[in-house]
């Protein structure tokens, strides 16, 4: 921590305070939260954004920022709409943001070329373009700790465990949001189908997903052995309700991690009991960090939004995303020897990020997520995920499996293929420096 200077910190605090009083804060470390608190995806956008902001607020309140530099969060409403997302990006990129977390696969696809040209890192935690895992091609994009293809593979692994390792002749349906997001797992599921001998049935649901009668009628008629869901926003609630209506066995219904929040299962009431969803981090609020969050953020009235989302699955995920960003900032500060890092130094920090159990325990999040390490050639982590199950009586999620690694034999060649195609298309020479 070479550049740390208490005098400077006091000055920064003073200046920040003065500026806070005068207008928008101009701190040294700017983070943009492209959130969506309106529209059909708000139910999922709000908890994530609250968690993301609250963690940074906690660092500001408790530690005075990171390495003595306060964090300035700029929130920009996208409504999960790509045009607004682009507008948010353009209007905030001159504030020297360190990283963007768009929380939308559509917006991510828009921002990958823009952010690469502007040299601002993108972190797409468990969403976005899967082949961005190949850091030799996607220098500025990171999607650790797990991606969609990992999710698809882990879901199939879980089904394999349930079926005693044999899926021959089984039928698996994929109910997906008919967009870039929902289409991501199809290729992986097809490849895995060739390997394990199951039959894949595709059921697209159009934006925003309130109308799913025909899809579930098809499920009812074809009786697939398992249903996997790639849903988001209001689509999740509707799908789970429809599954309950046709009395589909809920423990054979597995959602991706974006289809596994409390908001998705609560409307279906008792019927949703046993519904499963993947996750790449732990759930609940039984962590020492939560004591600090309550003490410094919630009790101080500084919580983002209504402050009522603590401990929900997506709040935890937003907090996890912020924690990974904060750890990357720390890594970057160590590497650069200064606290006031810029976007390029942030990228180096993200590329050298190492998450260990000791580090997580020290932060107050023991047993919260798997360990992983980012390298230049691997921007996507190790691809570990677990399965959580909903208990409708207790109204809580609990992990029912250990973290499982995805089938790298199938996924690695797919990533290689897709990223190479992108590199050729955009004239990128894959390299590590």
């Amino acid at each position, binding site marked *: 921590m070479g550049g740390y200077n208490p005098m400077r910190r006091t000055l920064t605090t003073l200046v920040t305070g003065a500026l806070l009083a005068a207008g*928008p804060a101009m701190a040294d470390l700017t983070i943009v939260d492209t959130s969506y608190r309106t529209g059909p995806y708000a139910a999922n956008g709000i908890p994530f954004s609250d968690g993301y902001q609250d963690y940074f607020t906690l660092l500001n309140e408790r530690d005075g920022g990171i390495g003595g530099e306060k964090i300035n969060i700029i929130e*920009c*409403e996208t409504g999960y709409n790509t045009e607004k997302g682009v507008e948010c990006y353009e209007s905030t990129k001159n504030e020297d943001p360190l990283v963007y977390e768009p929380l939308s696969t559509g917006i991510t*696809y828009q921002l990958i070329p823009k952010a690469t040209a502007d040299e601002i890192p993108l972190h797409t935690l468990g969403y976005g373009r899967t082949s961005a895992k190949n850091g030799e091609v996607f220098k500025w994009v990171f999607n650790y700790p797990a991606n969609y293809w990992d999710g698809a593979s882990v879901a199939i692994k879980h089904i394999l465990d349930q079926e005693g390792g044999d899926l021959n002749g089984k039928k698996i349906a994929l109910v997906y949001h008919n967009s870039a997001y929902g*289409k991501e797992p199809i290729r992986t599921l097809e490849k895995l189908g060739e390997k394990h001998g199951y039959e894949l049935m595709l059921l697209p649901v159009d934006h925003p997903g309130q109308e799913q009668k025909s899809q579930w009628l098809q499920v009812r008629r074809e009786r697939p052995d398992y249903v996997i869901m790639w849903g988001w926003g209001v689509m999740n609630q509707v799908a789970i309700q429809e599954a309950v209506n046709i009395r589909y066995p809920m423990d054979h219904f597995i959602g991706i991690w974006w289809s596994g929040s409390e908001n998705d299962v609560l409307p279906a009431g008792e019927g949703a009991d046993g519904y499963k969803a993947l996750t790449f981090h732990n759930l609940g609020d039984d962590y020492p960090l939560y004591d600090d969050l309550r003490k410094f953020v919630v009790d101080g009235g500084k919580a983002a939004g209504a402050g009522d989302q603590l401990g929900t699955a997506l709040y935890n995920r937003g907090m996890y995303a912020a924690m990974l960003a904060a750890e990357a900032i720390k890594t970057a500060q160590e590497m650069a020897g200064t606290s006031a890092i810029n976007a390029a130094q942030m990228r180096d920090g993200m590329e050298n990020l190492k998450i260990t159990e000791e580090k997580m325990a020290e932060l107050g999040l023991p047993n919260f997520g798997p360990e992983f390490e980012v390298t230049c050639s691997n921007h996507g982590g190790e691809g570990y995920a677990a399965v959580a199950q909903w208990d409708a009586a207790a109204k809580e999620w609990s992990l029912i499996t250990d973290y499982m690694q995805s089938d790298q034999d199938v996924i690695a060649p797919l990533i290689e293929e897709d990223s190479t195609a992108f590199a050729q298309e955009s004239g990128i020479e894959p390299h590590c420096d």
Partner: protein
Amino acid sequence: MIYREAGEFKTSYVDDGQTFPIRFDRLGYYVTLAVAFLVIPFMVNDYWVNAIFLPFLIYAIAAIGLNILVGYCGQVSLGTGGFMAVGAYSVYKLMTAFPDINIFFHVIIAGAITAAVGVLFGLPSLRIKGFYLAVATLAAQFFLVWLFNRVPWFYNYSASGQISAPERTVFGIPVTGAETQPWAVYLFCLVFLVGSALIARNLTRGSTGRRWMAIRDMDIAAEIIGVNPLTAKLTAFAASSFFVGVAGALFFAVYLGAVEVGEAFGISKSFLVLFMIIIGGLGSIFGSFAGAAFLVLLPVALKVVGADMFGWPTDTVAHLQLVIVGALIVTFLVLEPHGLAQLWRVTKEKLRLWPFPH
């Protein structure tokens, strides 16, 4: 006092028939063009271009297109989003299939393809009118979006189902892709907008436009005086779809760069463009500009004032925007059905007499 026609004597039919017969208007028009071509390109940055100018220029083209159909020919259409999608996917297929041809021509061909599709979906207009036609075009909207989502050939079998624009240049300067300069994309779209506006203005002033307006005002009477409804309606669909297609092509290739059909060209896009011409003014080229400018600037202005200046929560600002747009549409429909263009016309009438109204 300044704005008047007194003292201007036209000595030829050409003078008398020009677009801006009043000298002051003409001057204003030349000054606007000069500022748009010679001043703004030197001043814009990424934010101004991407948040304000590009959406304005592109939506203005789309609004001109829809105004020809709805405002001039009286055929209500809710298929604008679908036709923009045709333009976008056409230009994508052309860009990837013929990379050596200049993007400028691809955009024009994409407009022509959309015109053909528009004529096809315009055929029912010969039999059905009003609300029923609106429903038929609504079917076009849903069918086209479904088609582009369903048939992988349209998105070149990409895994995500998205289309993304590769880099293409005009005179060696990139206008699509990530490495574009703000002034380059601005000028590229501006050229299309000025071209579209000139063509549309002259089409509507000529015999074609008069036929459209005759059909709009009373189709049976128009038929009796010798207007062929088949050609009049179908040319309106063709011209309208051409401009909408050009707008869709620019929207995808230049503005967004990557597009997902359901989200970018959904039904909400159709309504947005329809609101633009309702607020701007039906049957007016100026109205298309005014409406596009209004609906592009309003959210940005609200965001700057609400979220950035007053620090209101971002969701409140987003909700407020819906309320304000809704209220404005109702207000305009009640108080000024001819939109901003009519306000402008009234202002001009007043100005002619000012300061001695009697």
